[in-house]
């Protein structure tokens, strides 16, 4: 190859100077370009966004006047509310994604040899994330935050041996000095970053969990020789990762800024969705606020209603689940990976999720209402019985048994030229409705915008299978091909889809240009600045989508299906 294009020369220059080929980066097999395998990247994306926005907030936050500083950031700092709200939602996203990431790996048995330490670091990072989120939430200084700290401090101080922790953790929080809470918030986040480095290095060292079809038993790792054949990290892996990270950022920024418009959410939804601070504790309005803990601690607070014995409560709510998660690689020592061959552990996992969700919702609906033992049994026994029965009797079928995949709907019908035309029209309508919604946010314009948006997303999903969900290529008769045959219709179908994807990148380019131009006209403070936030979120979503489409067009091969 004597004449290389400029772009590949630039790409090679970086590859060479950064030594990308020599770094211990995992090479990725084709079938892994699917979001399920990349949940960790989503968590990391949320983490980085939260760190960046947090550092911006740090320029303004004053721990000696927490509530006032929060208000100042929202009201007077240019785009302050955009960054504050998305910082909050970035941490929400990180918590939710971390749970999903953890439980997915739990059910695939990813904690088994040789990934035990990887798993343990992950669990520790989850704990640190919850802690950092709690402290960050306390920094707002509104009545919700201060009462959350009060309850938290109350729990700690009711164990006499632990009360020495209070001044260490909170300092003079009660008298309005948040310096310590801010410092701990930053320290915990720094610790997450520190553990993340090791977590990532180990993940690259052992690679992502291979499909059970390929490696049915632990230790599930690819050998060096197998690894060599896969896609190198640069550029395919990198491109795919960037698309996911930008999509994550887009949603983190767009959602809270859109929600900032919606006032008067019902109380049950309020602590989950409203990014605005509540009144300060000293305000007369504070009396009317039902105090909630941050939603990610609702389950702990609800367990506090179960028993007045704090030690017991800490055991049930915190210590036992945590110790279990930390030790599970050493308890579950078989080399089986299939969930139905680890029935006890699968059952425990399902119950943990069920109880977590159940208790959180309960805590949201009936915060602080005492629960008798009988009620506890009534609430928690049935899921346990159902799971136990299910685990005991669910049949395990060896693979290779006849299992016909029935597609949910025929995807091919979306890729006809007429469908593309329809999609273009829809895209235009979407842009129009978005502008209308941004210009005059009202329930009416939202009612117009949201259905069109969902239709647009649905279409985009159908047309860009790899972006959001991997789609088995070809039809069912082709996908069971264990032989080496290549179906020419597959190639042609893929080619057609790639052409559509190309047009869509064009549409995205035009739409993002319109939005970016709009962003220059939006005032930097006040209510309207959240419009800028929505626009910024949309831009990142479009950028992520464009990169994802690019990845699809350039790298997608006809024979790579999700395994």
């Amino acid at each position: 190859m004597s004449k290389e294009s400029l772009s590949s020369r630039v790409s090679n220059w970086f590859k060479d100077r950064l030594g990308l080929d020599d770094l211990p980066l995992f090479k990725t097999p084709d079938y892994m370009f699917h979001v399920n395998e990349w949940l960790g990247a989503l968590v990391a994306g949320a983490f980085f966004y939260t760190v960046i926005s947090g550092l911006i907030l740090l320029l303004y936050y004053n721990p000696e006047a927490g509530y006032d500083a929060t208000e100042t950031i929202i009201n007077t700092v240019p785009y302050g509310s955009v960054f504050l709200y998305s910082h909050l939602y970035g941490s929400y996203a990180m918590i939710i994604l971390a749970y999903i990431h953890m439980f997915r790996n739990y059910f695939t048995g990813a904690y088994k040899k040789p990934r035990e330490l990887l798993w343990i670091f992950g669990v520790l990072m989850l704990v640190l994330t919850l802690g950092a989120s709690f402290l960050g939430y306390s920094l707002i200084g509104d009545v919700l935050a201060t009462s959350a700290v009060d309850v938290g401090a109350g729990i700690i101080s009711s164990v006499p041996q632990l009360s020495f922790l209070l001044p260490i953790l909170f300092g003079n929080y009660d008298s309005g000095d948040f310096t310590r809470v801010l410092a701990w918030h930053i320290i915990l986040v720094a610790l997450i970053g520190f553990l993340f480095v090791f977590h990532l290095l180990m993940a690259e060292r052992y690679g992502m969990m291979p499909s059970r079809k390929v490696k049915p038993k632990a230790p599930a790792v690819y050998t060096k020789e197998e690894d060599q054949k896969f896609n190198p990290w640069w550029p395919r892996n990198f491109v795919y990762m960037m698309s996911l990270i930008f999509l994550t950022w887009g949603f983190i920024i767009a959602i809270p800024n859109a929600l900032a418009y919606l006032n008067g959410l019902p109380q049950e939804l309020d602590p989950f969705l409203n990014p605005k601070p509540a009144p300060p504790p000293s305000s007369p309005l504070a009396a009317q606020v039902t105090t909630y803990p941050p939603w990610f601690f609702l389950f702990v607070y609800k367990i506090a209603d179960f028993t007045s014995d704090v030690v017991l409560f800490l055991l049930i709510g915190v210590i036992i689940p945590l110790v279990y998660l930390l030790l599970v690689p050493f308890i579950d020592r078989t080399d089986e990976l299939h969930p139905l061959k680890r029935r006890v552990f699968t059952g425990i996992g399902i119950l943990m999720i069920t109880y977590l969700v159940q208790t959180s919702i309960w805590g949201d609906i009936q915060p602080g209402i005492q629960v008798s033992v009988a009620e506890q049994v009534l609430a928690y026994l049935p899921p346990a019985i159902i799971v136990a029965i299910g685990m005991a009797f669910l049949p395990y079928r060896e693979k290779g048994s006849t299992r016909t995949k029935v597609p949910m709907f025929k995807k091919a019908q979306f890729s006809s030229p007429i469908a593309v035309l329809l999609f273009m029209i829809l895209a235009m309508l979407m842009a129009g409705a978005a502008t209308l919604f941004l210009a005059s946010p009202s329930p009416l314009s939202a009612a117009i915008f949201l259905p069109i948006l969902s239709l647009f997303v649905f279409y985009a999903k159908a047309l860009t299978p790899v972006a959001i969900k991997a789609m088995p290529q070809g039809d069912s008769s082709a996908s069971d091909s264990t032989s080496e045959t290549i179906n020419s219709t597959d190639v042609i179908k893929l080619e057609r889809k790639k052409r559509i994807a190309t047009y869509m990148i064009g549409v995205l380019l035009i739409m993002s240009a319109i939005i970016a131009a709009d962003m220059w006209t939006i005032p930097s403070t006040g209510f309207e600045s959240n419009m800028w936030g929505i626009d910024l979120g949309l831009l990142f979503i479009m950028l992520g989508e464009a990169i994802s489409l690019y990845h699809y067009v350039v790298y997608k091969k006809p024979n790579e299906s999700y395994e």
Partner: protein
Amino acid sequence: MLSFHSKKGDKKVLSPDEFHFIRELTFAIRNKGFDPKEFVKKGDSYLFNFAEKNTSGIDEKRRNFLKAMVIGVGVVTVAGIIPGLRVLVPPNVSAVSSFPKSVLLNSSGSPLKASSISVNSPIIMLFNYPLSGEPNFLLNLGDSSGKPVEVPSSTVTVPQTGDKYTFPGGVGPNKSIVAYSAICQHLGCKPPFIHFYPPKYLTPAQLTAPEPDTLTAEALASAKSAKAPAIIHCDCHGSTYDPYHGAQPLTGPTVRPLPTVLLEWDSSTDYLYALGSLGVGIYPEGANGVPSKNPTVDLSSNFGSSVGDKTEVKEAENPFSS
């Protein structure tokens, strides 16, 4: 090795697309250096890469075009972010160089009518002015029978320095409405520790009342000798101020009067406006021994941000239990 399936059995006819592709591919295999040995070695992926490169699949040109478009979206995103960099420029809160003219609002957000303020109200009425961190009392003064009294202009002395200034008197329909800083000049206690005692509560009964309503005997005596029907008293250390005479100190330990807020009453609308501040600087300005003679120090940003052209009067609480 390479077989073309036909799903629909006999009836399947090659579509023009497929036909075109096959022609291109066979042409390429013949003429563009397809290496059968490599194919045997590498299998599928070699063929795909070959097909991509040499048919109208993803050739270099198309790839570059795509790249350009994606980079275009990236550049546009950066262009959209650029105005957001203003987040790094701190808003200039200390830029308040003069007192704003702020209309006083009631709690529902409409302008407060001067005639609606009850006379000698025990409820602590506060508004922030000129900055968001600077609370002030709003008082409608009356005599002991609850009738509004005209508060005349008077000369106020700052005991600490001996400086004098002229307090302009009350405003409103009865010239009975006055406003003073609600931060004690002694050590900065705030309401409810410092608040107004209407004539009803200026009795020896308050000597034994619980905090924050305890009066000292000294305060009672000084009010009597100054003929003040009501006083402002700070429960922290017992400073007493005379609201009828520009919050002139009656008893220590304070050595400075409470700064006055200049009010204006619009007789046609019955609205009240805050215009500025008079006397000494709001506490803690001058607390280091030398009082500030210049009330504009109240505008320094560490008290918060400017209240702008309106400020809400909050009826904070009634400190008296009975």
